[in-house]
């Protein structure tokens, strides 16, 4: 069918574009090298500076951008479907506040007496990440529990998400104002700034494994169910799909993927809004193509942002979170104006 062919072409083109961007990103950077040199070092890594730059400083970021971008894009599309709102994202559940709170707690409670000193003795960066992750999960569970009390409909999920994020935000600010001195506050702030360079190879492996084995396959598998639930809970039930179960599973898995990535690279906003929106305009709302397109779009946006942030005012680095906002805001405004109604009919 003609329409399907068009969608396939678009998806393939986006994937192709990403594949082109990968070697470009690996080649671009302050440390100048020719393409053959870069290729040699890619296939035969050694101990030379170029090899370290290409592998540890560039390739790792590129892979992180692709994985995290795909997770954010997919989670964005999934969450938007289950709450029937194109402005929703995993961060609507207050994940970024919860993660920040986790960092604040890690700094405060786990390293209690150290508060008095100027230096922040973080004994183990992994601990901070795991705290952020744990708090994000707690946040999601609280949201779900609250929504469960009110029938787990789309509306109740959104409301409980908003309520609990405000609560987390309030606690976070209270903590910052009362207990943390300026040094700790900036640590929390600094940490929440997304930075793809922060992730280590082990952490990247963890995120990639979780995404490839759980998060991404789940979203793809449930594509048709997302189409269903957009039409209404009754519609879904009449086709044998439990809307409550879909919501719970999606929320947990989206939160898991997003929280895991966020705990290692910090908060990167906009991608989970931008990617599904752009994808929807390109391939329509059918999740069979929307989901993978949203994921590829997420990878593309993140990769582009990170590469631009690294190269535009080299050697100063603009954090990727700022780049996504800079790119994202005008793009989002353009998309909103140009149209693509989600089609509310209530």
């Amino acid at each position, binding site marked *: 069918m003609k329409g399907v062919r068009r969608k396939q072409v678009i998806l393939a083109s986006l994937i192709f574009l990403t594949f082109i961007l990968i070697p470009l990103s690996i080649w671009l950077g*302050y440390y100048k090298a020719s393409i053959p040199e870069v290729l040699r070092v890619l296939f035969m890594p050694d101990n030379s500076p170029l090899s370290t730059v290409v592998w*540890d400083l560039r390739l790792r970021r590129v892979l992180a951008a692709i994985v995290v971008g795909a997770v954010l894009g997919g989670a964005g599309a999934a969450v938007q479907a289950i709450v029937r709102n194109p402005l929703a994202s995993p961060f609507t559940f207050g994940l970024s506040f919860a993660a920040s709170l986790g960092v604040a707690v890690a700094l405060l409670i786990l390293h209690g007496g150290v508060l008095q*000193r*100027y230096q922040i003795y973080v004994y183990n960066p992994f601990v901070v990440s795991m705290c952020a992750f744990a708090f994000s999960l707690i946040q999601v569970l609280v949201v779900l529990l609250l929504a469960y009390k009110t029938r787990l409909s789309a509306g109740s999920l959104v409301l409980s998400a908003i309520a609990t994020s405000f609560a987390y935000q309030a606690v976070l600010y209270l903590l910052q104002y009362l207990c943390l001195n300026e040094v700790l506050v900036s640590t929390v702030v*600094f940490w929440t700034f997304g930075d793809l360079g922060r992730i280590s190879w082990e952490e990247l492996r963890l995120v990639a494994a979780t995404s490839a084995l759980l998060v991404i396959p789940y979203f793809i598998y449930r594509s048709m169910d997302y189409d269903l639930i957009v039409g209404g809970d009754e519609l879904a039930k009449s086709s044998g799909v439990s809307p409550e179960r879909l919501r719970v599973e999606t929320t947990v898995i989206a939160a898991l993927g997003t929280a895991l990535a966020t705990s290692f690279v910090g908060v990167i906003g906009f991608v989970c809004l931008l990617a599904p929106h752009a994808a929807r305009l390109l391939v329509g709302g059918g999740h069979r193509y929307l989901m993978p397109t949203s994921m590829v779009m997420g990878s593309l946006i993140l990769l582009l942002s990170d590469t631009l942030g690294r190269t535009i005012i080299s050697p*100063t680095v603009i954090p990727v979170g700022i780049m996504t906002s800079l790119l994202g805001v005008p793009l989002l405004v353009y998309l909103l104006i140009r149209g693509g109604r989600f089609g509310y009919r209530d």
Partner: protein
Amino acid sequence: MRGLTKVQAVAIAAVAVIAVAIACLSLGYPGQSQQKQTPAGPIVVTDVLGRNVTLPSKVERVVAIGGGMLRLVCYLNATSLLVGVEESEARWGFTGRDYAMAYGELFKGLPVVGPGGPGKPPAPELIMAVKPDVVIMSRTYCEFYDPDRLQREVNATVIVIDYGPAGWLDIEGICNALTVLGKVLNRQERAQQLIDFIKNVHRDLSERTRDVASRPKVYVGAVAYKGPQPFTSTQSPFPPLALLNTPSIADKYAKASGFVSMDFEAIIAEQPDVIFIDEGNLRTVKMDFDKDPNKYLQLRAFREGRVYGTLPYNYYHTNIAVALADAYYIGKVLYPDKFKDVDPETKADEVFQVFLGKPLYRAYAEAYGGFKCLSELFKVP
């Protein structure tokens, strides 16, 4: 009551608006001068905002609020005049603020006059409670609290001081601030003593490093700025290096002077000969090194062990004494033949002695590591 009619509602609203307007007008707008009750003294100083401040005849009760203000009071040996301190001065650990390490116990015994810390506005009621003659206010507070208003509210002379942006060594600014404060606190001789010392140091460092055959490439990493920073954060120009007429590799890339976040690749590409790390953020760097040693080992300086630690000096405004001490240490490392006669630790204590009357190097070294080579920390097991 059945409810207001339209006319009643409008009338009440009008009365409310007029009442609020009267209240605002009576509070007065800035510029309206108000007679103070203190007897006019003969001394007038111009503060850093250009305000002409008339000092009271006797200045015996002093409060200093905002970053760096209490430090200057301590430098000028005027701590006996203090009648109150900000809570942060007593609550935050003393380590890292040179004046607190010298006089911290004194602070603990004084009443609290406000929260203290960047972004926290002064508390007029608390300040008023200690009945100061003069309030020394940092310029950073003026952004969100008008000094003239504070002056009226606490019924004391408020003088606004600053000695350059936090983290920098603005020699002229420092000297001006000391001069003005010296007049205010009746410590003119002491102020002059400090100014002379600072100018001597400036001249000494400049002369030693003027005719140097070749300057090594230097990078200063993890420079403190609003909290912990990673290795890729640096400052351009780095003030102690500037005193030594030496650029850092960041200088040619920083579009404007300030705190800069460098691309690690750029550091690798530049291959600095010597690297200094702000010991305030040493842990952050060490952690990153443990997680990701490869990229650090691509730096020749790390492989050859030419990595050294400097004492952090940016904490609630620049610790001038520490910054000067750092300059001597860095000079010794970079130009050993020009600094043959200098032992950095002894020199540091000399500086501390002049500024604060106490040798503080040992305490600093215990807290942060002190002037030393850090190569042992950055070895891969």
